[in-house]
């Protein structure tokens, strides 16, 4: 027998009924099942053998799909940093700076989130759930690199408790947990999560002419000032070529840690779709909705932002990241297959509307997804009703 198994067996009585740490049994079990697939067997009646997949593997698949975004994000923090202060740096230096910024955020997100989760599990005597594996990484990836760590902690606690645990834990939440964390910061500490926060400067001073504005902000300002087109503003940005379509697709632009690279997001999407964990219907329809809405605005064309070529919407801001990793959260998304098409499509449309029309929120994907999270049960309701109606109709014919 494995020595770790022996150790677990040895301490098991402490956590059993009547043991010293009886209250913490769920934590004991949670840790043991992370190391060992449990020895549970199927019941007397019903399926006698089961599929190899479980929720843990499903969740870790999503985490793995996010790794390209994370690695690219770490490099990009360093890249943006050295670009802003006007120094050239090696790949290693960029990674170094990026890691110093990003890793503490990840650690805080996981430590605080899991801590909160464990506490709730002990209080409510729930099994420890693997849902936070994904949420913890998501929260870190949608934070600006310069975010104060205490804000990450606060947002995480708020999101885990208010968005998830009060509803009954993993599987019961209405809103996407990670986006709730982000929305919390957005409304509680707006100055720390908008404006000049997307590039980590540290103690260094930026070069002359530097601007930390994101592509969305540039596009929005162009429309506000009424000078030239968005593409002209992009090409006259202080850092040359920063907001070319290609560069934005690759993702070497300022933004949240993991959201900037459409390319890396698409690699993640490929993993999610190939493994069947993420719904391709949602991913596709978010992109389709955003693009079609972009075309729609092109046709109206009242200001420069509306006239921005529609495909630019797909590579700027967090649309791609949100479409692939947030909108596909199976719990908060629509549950019916038909509903998924509608849900994704409306997210795409709403994102572009919020971006272009609403002056208060330059990024639309967060609010679009949260809004559609709330409406997803309504969409499902109509899909379910139509299923019932088909059945009734069949009976009366």
């Amino acid at each position: 027998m494995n020595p770790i198994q022996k150790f677990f067996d040895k301490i098991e009585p402490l956590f059993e009924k009547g043991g010293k740490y009886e209250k913490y049994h769920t934590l004991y079990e949670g840790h043991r099942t992370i190391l060992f697939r449990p020895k549970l067997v199927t019941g007397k009646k019903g399926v006698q053998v089961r599929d190899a997949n479980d929720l843990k593997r499903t969740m870790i698949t999503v985490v793995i799909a996010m790794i390209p975004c994370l690695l690219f994000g770490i490099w990009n923090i360093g890249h943006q940093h050295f670009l802003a202060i006007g120094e050239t740096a090696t790949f290693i230096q960029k990674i170094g700076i990026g890691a110093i910024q990003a890793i503490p955020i990840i650690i805080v997100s996981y430590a605080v989130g899991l801590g909160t989760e464990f506490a709730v599990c002990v209080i409510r005597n729930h099994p420890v759930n693997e849902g936070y594996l994904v949420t913890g990484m998501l929260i870190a990836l949608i934070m600006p690199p310069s975010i104060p760590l205490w804000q990450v902690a606060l947002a995480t606690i708020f999101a885990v408790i208010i968005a998830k645990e009060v509803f009954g834990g993993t599987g019961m939440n209405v809103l996407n947990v990670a986006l709730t964390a982000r929305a919390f910061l957005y409304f509680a500490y707006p100055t720390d999560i908008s404006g000049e926060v997307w590039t980590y400067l540290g103690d260094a001073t930026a070069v002359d002419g530097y601007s930390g504005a994101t592509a969305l902000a540039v596009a929005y300002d162009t429309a506000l000032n009424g000078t030239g087109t968005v593409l002209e503003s992009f090409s006259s940005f202080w850092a040359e070529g920063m907001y070319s379509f290609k560069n934005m697709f690759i993702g070497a632009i300022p933004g949240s840690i993991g959201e900037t690279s459409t390319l890396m997001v698409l690699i993640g999407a490929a993993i999610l779709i190939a493994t069947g964990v993420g719904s391709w219907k949602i991913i596709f329809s978010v992109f389709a909705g955003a693009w079609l809405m972009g075309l729609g605005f092109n046709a109206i064309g009242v200001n420069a932002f509306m006239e921005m070529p529609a495909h630019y919407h797909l590579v700027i801001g967090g649309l791609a990241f949100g479409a692939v990793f947030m909108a596909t959260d199976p719990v908060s998304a629509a549950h019916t297959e038909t509903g998924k098409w509608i849900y994704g499509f409306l997210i795409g449309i709403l994102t572009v509307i919020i971006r272009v029309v609403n002056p208060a929120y330059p990024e639309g994907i967060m609010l679009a997804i949260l809004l559609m999270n709330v409406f997803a049960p309504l969409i499902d309701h109509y899909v379910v009703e139509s299923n019932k109606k088909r059945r009734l109709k069949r009976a009366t014919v």
Partner: protein
Amino acid sequence: MSHTIKLKKGFDINLAGKAENKISNAPKPETFAIKPTDFPAITRPKLLVEEGDSVKAGTPLIYDKMAPDVLYCSPVSGEVVEIKRGEKRKLLELRILADKENEFEDFGKYSKSDIKSLDAQKAKETMLKSGVWPNIIQRPYGIVANPEDSPKAIFISAFDTHPLAPDYNFIYRDEEEAFTVGLEVIKKFTEGKVHINISEDKEMLKMFSQAEGVQINKFSGKHPSGNVGVQIHHIDPINKGDIAWTVKPYGVIQIGKLFLTGKYDASKKVALTGSEVKEPQYYQTSVGASIKNIIKDNISGDHVRYISGNPLTGERIDADGYLGYYDEQITVVPEGDFEELLGWIKPTTSKLSIHRAIGLLSFLNKKKEYVLNTNTNGEERAFVMTGEFEKVLPMDILPNYLFKAIMAEDFDEMEALGIFELIEEDVALCEFIDVSKHELQAILRKGINLMING
């Protein structure tokens, strides 16, 4: 008239240990048992015999107080040796020590022309008292049919697509006469059609594919295309207030034999299958037989599970346990009650999965025969994933919503979402693939019981 229905959804669980087309005669089992728990409708079983009584094949043993006309009879002649009860004196098993020579109760022989002119009421009476009636199952609910009803149609699925299922074309190849006569009798019970559903994917016996006076429907596709519930959904679905009956080919044959010979013939061929069986093949035995003699010296593993039935819907029994009333298969698989280091993340080609989550590589090798043990491969969780059950249920039903309606005990929702169309076997694949490891068949049965009693 025949038409083909192609089902795209479903999943074939390709397991090691398929029965070879060979029939062996294991030594006759010493004991047989009737288990009231095999019949989900029996709520208040009443005994008609006591320990020590001598019985013949066809002597009634029990009946249900709620449906006293249906008698459950002894499969063999012998002595009632034990009446096993569980908690709250619930009747679990009635064991019979078999005689060397089988003696039969006589229910009266009929010539083929008599059978043609036999009236339905008389046929029912004979079937009810002789022990063959429980072969007739009612939809909705999947319970033994009420003889007072007249069903809108009767459905027979002539093939079984469950993992390692017996091949009806093989085991019933010599039963044409009994099947045809049984069919003749069954036709009397409905004003509507009798449907025989055959597989388009394999050569079917002529008694199925060329049966007369019935509608032949062809189905193709993966499991559960052989489930009669799925077939009914596509032919003539069950709506509120509808009653249809289903019979397995074995039941039809048994009914045929009853009228041809006047005897309750409980002999049947069962497939002994599974990765832990040395020589998977068919055995000649009887309803309710002890599996002891069949599995003797035939099992390779030392820590195994014996299943009466198939690995999706079967029931765990002991090494000296008894074959379930409706089962035509014994499956032996390894037990999985051990921990596995990082078993939830390790890449594997040896475990089967419909999913392709990281490290699950079975989709690369669809031809491989898998050895699956009884481990659940994970703990029970809340429903998280969506859109998965739909992939293995080829019906216009939203399983997630139905299960949630059952859990909430919402009668209107259960009805509206299609509970009348399902029984356990139809959702067994959902249960198999469920990453949240719910016992969906048990949940469905709970819902069905609510509908019956509510």
